């Protein structure tokens, strides 16, 4: 028995010491001494393609190379760093990793105390001078061959109205619908076929769409949250839903798709419109002393040319 006790003691000592060493090193480093982790979105997302086509270098003497065209060159199949799953994936990762850098929708991160939103070339996001290429459009899609269910149509009217505009702009986006008119809700639930409004699509549009649903429920006396069936699984899901891919047989069309990829504005079988314009923000962990970054530095980071925070912070 004595032997066994000794063994257990040894076991505990070894484990504790390993953890202690790892834990100690975790606290020891400043961000400035660390390497850069560049976090990207998954290829295929609207955010990612906007990012790839807008981050560029100016070093080649006039010949501007964007990340997208850099990727198309032979030998460069992937960006440096790592990829995360959806906008929440990027944000969650950077919140827990002190030396990471990434990008997300401005309105989703600007009030997050664990993150710092960087200025680009000295301009804060939203200010004139901030790269306009980092703005992207949110697309709403509905199947054009079958009429929408009354309640889905009402919701669609609502998000294009002045009330919708107030909510969208209150969330920090630019409202893209031209000439919005005030929305007046019918006093009672539309008769006939009812059922939940299905909303499907992009994780980037998710936050503003959630606020719009809450706004609709607040503005319409008979509406309840149970009238909405909301799933944000990605832009692809939104396109499937918006082009009638989820409608079966005699079922009425209740589905509204959302996408963060402007290319989806021409999707077949869907009537589409731009809902809002969003600005992408570059984000780092709050422990990072950096406040400003340039396009060239971002290009260098994402192509793997710049790897140490010291080079960026002291530049």
């Amino acid at each position, binding site marked *: 028995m004595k032997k066994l006790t000794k063994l257990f003691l040894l076991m505990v000592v070894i484990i504790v010491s390993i953890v202690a060493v790892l834990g100690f090193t975790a606290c020891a480093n400043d961000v400035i001494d660390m390497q850069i*982790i560049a976090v990207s979105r998954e290829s295929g997302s609207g955010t990612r393609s906007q990012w790839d086509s807008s981050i560029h270098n100016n070093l080649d003497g006039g010949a501007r190379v964007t990340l997208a065209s850099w990727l198309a060159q032979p030998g460069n199949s992937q960006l440096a760093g790592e990829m995360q799953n959806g906008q929440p994936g990027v944000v969650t990762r950077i919140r827990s990793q002190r030396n990471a850098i990434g990008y997300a929708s401005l309105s989703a991160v600007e009030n997050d105390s664990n993150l710092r939103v960087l200025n680009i070339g000295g301009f804060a996001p939203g200010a004139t001078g901030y790269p306009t290429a980092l703005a992207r459009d949110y697309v709403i899609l509905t199947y054009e061959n079958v009429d929408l269910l009354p309640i889905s149509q009402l919701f669609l009217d609502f998000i294009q109205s002045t009330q919708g505009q107030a909510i969208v702009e209150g969330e920090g986006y630019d409202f893209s619908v031209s000439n919005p008119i005030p929305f007046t809700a019918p006093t009672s639930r539309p008769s006939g076929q009812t059922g939940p409004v299905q909303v499907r699509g992009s994780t980037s549009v998710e936050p503003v769409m959630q606020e719009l649903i809450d706004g609709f429920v607040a503005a319409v006396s008979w509406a309840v949250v149970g009238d909405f069936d909301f799933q944000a699984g990605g832009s692809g899901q939104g396109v499937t839903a918006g082009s009638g*891919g989820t409608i079966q047989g005699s079922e009425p069309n209740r589905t509204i798709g959302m996408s963060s990829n402007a290319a989806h504005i021409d999707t077949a079988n869907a009537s589409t419109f731009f809902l809002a314009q969003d600005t992408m923000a570059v984000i780092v962990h709050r422990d990072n002393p950096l406040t400003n970054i340039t396009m060239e530095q971002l290009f260098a980071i994402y192509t793997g040319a710049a790897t140490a925070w010291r080079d960026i912070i002291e530049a």
Partner: protein
Amino acid sequence: MQNVYGYVYHTHFVELFMDILDKNQNIETNLNARKISRIFFLAVLGFLPPLLIMAYIKIKRHKENSNASSLLDFAKSNDKRLLIALWFTIVWTCVLASTISAFVVYFIAGWFGFPFILAFIIATVLAVAINVLTLVAVFDKELSFKIGFLVSAIVAIVAVFAIFFFLILEGMPAIRDVGFFRFIFGRTWRHDPNNPAVWGHDPTYGGARSVYNILPMVVGTIVAAIGALVIGGGLGVLTAICIVWFCPKRLKPFVSQAITLLAGIPSVIFGFFGMQVLLPLLGNISPTGNGSGPLAVAIVLGMMILPTVVAISKNSIEAVNQSYYEAGVALGASKERTVFKAVVPAAKSGILASLILGIGRAVGETMAVIMVAGNVAVMPDGLFQPFRTLTVNIVFEMAYSEPGSLHQGALVGTGVVLLGFVLIINIVFNFIKRNNNSNKESIIIPTIKRIVCKPFVLVCSKVFKNNTTKADNSDIIDIVKKDFNFESAISTSLLTRFINVLPKITKIISFIMLGFSLFFLGSIILYVLINGLGHINWGLLTGDFTGFGRNHPVTLRPAIITTLMYILLTSVIAFPLGILTAVFLQEYTKRGSKVAKIIELAVETLAGTPSIVYGLFGMILFVTILGLGLSITSGSIVVALMTLPLTVRATQEGLKSVPDTYREGSYALGAGKVRTIFRVVIPSALPSIVTMIILGVGRMVAETASLMFTMGSSLGPDPVGYASSGTTLAVAFYALVRTPGRENEAFAAASILILIVLVLNIGATLIASFLKKKTIAS
């Protein structure tokens, strides 16, 4: 609350049928057609029952008079009127019953969100099946039950075929389009939505167009599996040895219970722990500052396969004949020496089997990997290089692929390749198991080494050698060649050589490994509970869902309701099917008969299929083709298929443990087979069936990956029926983790999950021992 599916109930069956027949005609024609069809319908219903009753009476009378016992005897009869009555009964009972059950299914289906056609097909199949069974039952009860058992056993085979069929249907065109070899051995995966690769386009390398080749992911999967094997396998085997031979007696049940518990923790929690705790720690020792990569994945997956490895190797070590140990000690060897030189080598094939099962689990894991792998589609060329596995590739890009595009086809094609992987692992596993049974282990292990390991090491070194774009690759090749000895992980030969010199040290190491296993378990549970328990409150559990936005409080009530509804439907499908299948396998087929072999193979394939493949299958078949959409129904059916193998196997084990004397006694008393099964065999196997049900529920609670494709992944209001989309607690945890400012609620959800798993595990043990005592007492 208003019933949102009201429109389904108000539509008359016949009217709807006519609507489908002439959808585009004007209303007047429609009305006339409806009238006619309704009259016809009523007329048929009106004159049928009297005729049927007459026919039944005729048959019954004949049966009493002639002592004919089976359907065949009737068919041989010369009485023409009797034959007409017989066929009339069979045909019209089928028609009548299928119509009635179509009504019933259709009305229930409204609640489940089934489209009409699907409901009608299901109703017809069900009705015909039930009819045939009842008709046969009138003549031959034993036969009818046998058919019933067989039908439920066939479900597993149908499921396997369906999975293969639909995956290949969707994935093969893309593989063919890219070219089979290029798809699997091409080294570039790059998707650019603005420049997608299109069908029929010859994918040239370079240029801006997207390229879909999956070699990086194939290699990534292999690397992840090996990493998991090195960490989880080594740890697991040594832990098992330590538990069986060196652990103090009092600690033993506690330790093995704790390790089983590790198996029940949802994989999202493992992944979250890895992302939040492990990655920042590893980032400090990583040369690139980024902790994600093969090492992190290996640690997380190693933790996940640990319980599987421990459980199975423990069983096989315990199964080694006690005389081996006694002989060793009698020859004067120390305890450690005997254990490592005599007992463990005897359990070699069992240990090998446990390792291969562990690999299977590691290959199929998704949610834990996605959070720590870094997910870039390149070859993993270092311990800290972000990489991607096959499973991650599917989850990662599926949501962004457009339906019908080559991209989506290539993703489903990834699923097909993954399925192929798992099949190979399954075949190897079966090979070993079969040889294990016939005691040919001395031949089999070298063969496995030759067939599996050598080419593998070759491939590995080749892959790494080719990838010489960076200068620092040379040392990695060295690692592969020297230190990264795959064989040491698979066989115990190196281990035994080591033990030869230092048996005592190995014992100490095995203790440390046990400690590590417990430490992993403890740290995950404590991490979650410390952060989460304080945030569980009544409002979080039962509060109304007031809105989607960030200003509204989080409530887990919708998730809890969804989880309960989903567990109910899944259990209703999976457990009866599984139990009936097991009864058929155990009681109606001889060991090694062809039917049994085929069914067992199907069940094993289902068991090995990764949950993400189930998710893909569910997405293709239930969500899209059958039009169930993202709904609790789709998710439940898919997970029911997933739980089926566990149900079948555990029930089968239970039935096996019922001594044959019970059955013989029952037969001797004059009971038939059916009576024996339901009155004697199943009640005696009840403890293991109950344990199986509890563990099955635990597995349902922990499932995530397949549900995200079939049931939804965003938080929403209470589900109003089985047609609603929804999130279970585990998926809700994943959604909350990813919402800024909702960490407390996420931890609370994780704590609830862990508590549920704890309660289920302990409950399973307690109930099993209680029932065992009761059965023995009676």
